[in-house]
């Protein structure tokens, strides 16, 4: 029984009337990677918050190494060897890695800098963590920050590591690295709990998988005795079709044309380098590229938020460059951008759904006063159409789960009936079902003749969903290809800067 590291028995937790966890059982062994799989709102995060001392369970017991424990605060959980890595990093930007690690720990008045550095180096080597102890956090990439978070909890003596959707913010390469670290930890005898809803990651890295659905445990399965289809069925409670439809439409008129677009960022770095492309009505144009390759700047330039140095954006025979964001919205260009932390852009967290829907409606209303009646109607429609899990339309969006927050945002953008719909990372962090709802919605818009610019991360999705794929690298377009007859490899090459000469010729 020694290897029963953690056992959670009959755990229940409700928030007001909402039951988040109901009699959940979970056992994690030493030296295993245990995936916690479930849709948004299935209760994964709540369960882990109880294991890490953020919430106290309403009922049930938690055992760590066969001893019953009761955590009243995260500190208790840390003392019991449980460390949680959140999606939103809890690091101080202006401090170095080393300073972040020792922050908040009791270790005397003075600090033995050298011994600490030595200890960090030693731990880094042991777990295969690649981190410079003296690097400032603001200089770090997302992947490095995550590594630092892991190192931080390990330094506090964590033997059980909980990762809350760690790959949602990572590039494929960084994800690979993270999996190596996780496997290393497993070899070192730690236990890793991995919250996710990405099937391929589960199959790649997990040993056992516990599936949650609507706050209850469905089943715990061994990886070897299952497959993605089976897991999806467990998650959803029914059989689902995982393929993405591509609706064929007649290629029609150009909806928007971008010509020689050049833009600089605040530091004077050229972020958009002579971009030229067209989007047709009734097509989905995908944009692929490594994060930071100018996708965000392109979106913001079209929306009038990023100053343009040179070039034109022609929409309905008018140049959008120089117009204010509200004028561009009024013309029928919608842009929604889901940032890496999924918060902060587009929604007002403390306001309810109605007041967030109003945000794109009120400017079209005449006069001085604001009328919330239409927004209430729309809110009800959007909640129903996108199946948003909420106690009501007057519920603050901050209290909704991540996926539902995103649905509110997209629902609103689609509702404004745009002619050009720019959507960046709309499925970021969403579960399969919600992803497919969103793909369906984009297809619907396409069929209505809307030009969709879809900035995505997942190449498989881009290949299946889009008509054409534009690849960006360091602010340049390295190629625009037909999604029907290209390969992941071809796009991958263009993502790192190999210019597709055929396409370039075709363009000019």
């Amino acid at each position, binding site marked *: 029984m020694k290897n029963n590291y953690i056992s959670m028995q009959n755990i229940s937790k409700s928030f007001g009337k909402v039951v988040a966890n109901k009699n959940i059982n979970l056992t994690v062994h030493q030296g295993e990677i245990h995936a916690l799989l479930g849709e948004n709102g299935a209760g994964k995060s709540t369960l882990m918050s109880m294991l890490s001392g953020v919430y106290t369970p309403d009922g049930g017991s938690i055992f760590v190494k066969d*001893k019953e424990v009761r955590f*009243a605060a995260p500190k208790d959980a840390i003392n019991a*060897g449980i460390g949680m890595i959140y999606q939103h990093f809890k690091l101080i930007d202006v401090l170095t890695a080393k300073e972040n690690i020792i922050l908040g720990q009791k270790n005397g008045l003075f600090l033995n800098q050298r011994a600490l550095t030595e200890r960090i180096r030693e731990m880094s080597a042991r777990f295969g963590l690649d981190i410079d102890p003296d690097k400032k956090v603001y200089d770090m990439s997302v992947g490095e920050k995550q590594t630092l978070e892991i190192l931080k909890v390990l330094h506090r003596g964590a033997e059980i590591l909980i990762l809350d959707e760690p790959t949602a913010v990572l590039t494929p390469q960084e994800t690979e690295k993270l999996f190596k670290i996780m496997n290393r930890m497993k070899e070192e005898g730690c236990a890793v709990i991995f919250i996710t809803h990405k099937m391929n990651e589960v199959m790649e890295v997990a040993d056992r998988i516990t599936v949650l659905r609507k706050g209850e445990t469905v089943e715990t399965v061994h990886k070897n005795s299952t497959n993605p289809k089976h897991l999806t069925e467990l998650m959803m409670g029914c059989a689902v079709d995982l393929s993405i439809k591509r609706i064929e439409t007649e290629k029609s008129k150009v909806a928007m044309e971008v010509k020689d677009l050049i833009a600089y960022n605040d530091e004077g770095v050229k972020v958009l380098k002579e971009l030229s492309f067209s989007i047709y009505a009734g097509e989905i144009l995908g944009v692929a590229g490594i994060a930071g390759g100018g996708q965000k700047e392109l979106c913001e330039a079209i*929306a009038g938020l990023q100053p343009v140095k040179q070039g034109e954006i022609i929409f309905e025979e008018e140049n959008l460059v120089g117009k204010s964001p509200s004028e561009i919205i009024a013309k029928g260009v919608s842009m929604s951008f889901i940032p890496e932390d999924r918060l902060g852009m*587009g929604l007002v967290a403390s*306001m309810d759904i109605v007041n967030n829907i109003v945000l794109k409606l009120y400017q079209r209303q005449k006069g*001085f006063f*604001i009328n919330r009646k239409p927004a209430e109607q729309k809110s009800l429609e959007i909640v129903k159409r996108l199946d948003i899990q909420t106690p009501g339309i007057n519920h603050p969006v901050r209290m909704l789960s991540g996926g539902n927050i995103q649905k509110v945002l997209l629902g609103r953008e689609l509702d404004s009936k745009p002619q050009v719909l720019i959507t960046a990372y709309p499925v970021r962090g969403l579960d399969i079902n919600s992803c497919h709802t969103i793909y369906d919605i984009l297809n619907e818009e396409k069929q209505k003749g809307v030009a969709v610019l879809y900035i995505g991360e997942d190449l498989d999705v881009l290949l299946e969903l889009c008509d054409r794929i534009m690849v960006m690298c360091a602010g340049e377009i390295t190629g625009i290809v037909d999604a029907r007859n290209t390969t992941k490899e071809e796009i991958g090459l263009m993502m790192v800067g190999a210019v597709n000469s055929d396409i370039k010729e075709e363009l000019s």
Partner: protein
Amino acid sequence: MIMPMTIRAIKKSEPSRLKAATIRIGAIILALITSSIFILLLDLNPANVYMKMVQGAFGTAYRARETIIKAIPLVITSLGIAIAFRMQFWNIGGEGQIAMGAFAASFVALNMSDMSKPILLLLMILAAMLVGGLWALIPAFFKAQWGTNETIVTLMMNYIGLKWIMYLQYGPWRDPNSLGFPKIANFTENAILPKLMGVHIGWIFALLLVAAVYIFLNHTKKGYEIAVIGESINTARYAGINIKRTILIAILLSGGLCGLVGMIQASGVNSTLSVEVTGGVGYTAIITAWLASLSAPVILVVSILFAALLEGGSYIQTVFGIPESAALILQGIILFFVLGSEFFVQYKFILVKNQNSVKKEVV
């Protein structure tokens, strides 16, 4: 075996309105009990003292009027501050804006005193609101343009405003007929706000403004934009809100309301301009605005209660012959409990068993 226990404060998920109200009322009861101990130490009967406090605030028509007169500047200044605070623009420059508003109103009153009363008063109001608004606009402009910290700039500008009034009072505006006393001349009769039901008509302004600010913040586009900017600048940017313009408009209004208070105090209460015109209202209103959670109707109630506390406090000084400091201590205790109760609305305490056994296992 007895487990050692510790107390921990835990953030509540979302306090219900009923619970919050219960906690706040409980805090007032506790404040009264605690004050009772203090009153007993002074050899007085607490029940008697409380009754006299209420009587002092509302006991006679005269005293009720005095309380209302104290409440008027608090209400209007709190409204002004609430507009800025909704946008998370920390305008703590109410003092300076009141002073500059009073200055502008006095300038009109002293130089154009031969105009007919309604026109003169209207001009005074407009001048006060404009100058108060512009005084607030300076830090707002700095913030919108260069992202400076408005807390510091608005605070510093209080001193400039108040010292400017002092300079006028001791220097160029000193009344030659005041026998060397540093005093600015009294306003002529037609520069003084008329009375209605025994109180200068500032109370009508206050009531109208409560309604106007409530509608502005909750039912107009600008009010909504102000709230969005307050919650998230990035969201406001993506929604196409003109952020700079909205900041400037909101702060112009915020400062304008404070400026109006300067006019009302100079004209309706003091009939002249002096450095005492603000009476600390610019700071007190921050407390009342917060206590009212920036809601206009609640501001009205809180301000009247606050004014009653002040009036009642000064009344018991004369009735019981206790020093001013004793009355201030009572006010302090009550405020302390009421403000402190906000913590209990947000957090709850729980008793927990210590986890020593676990710690040993792992370390």
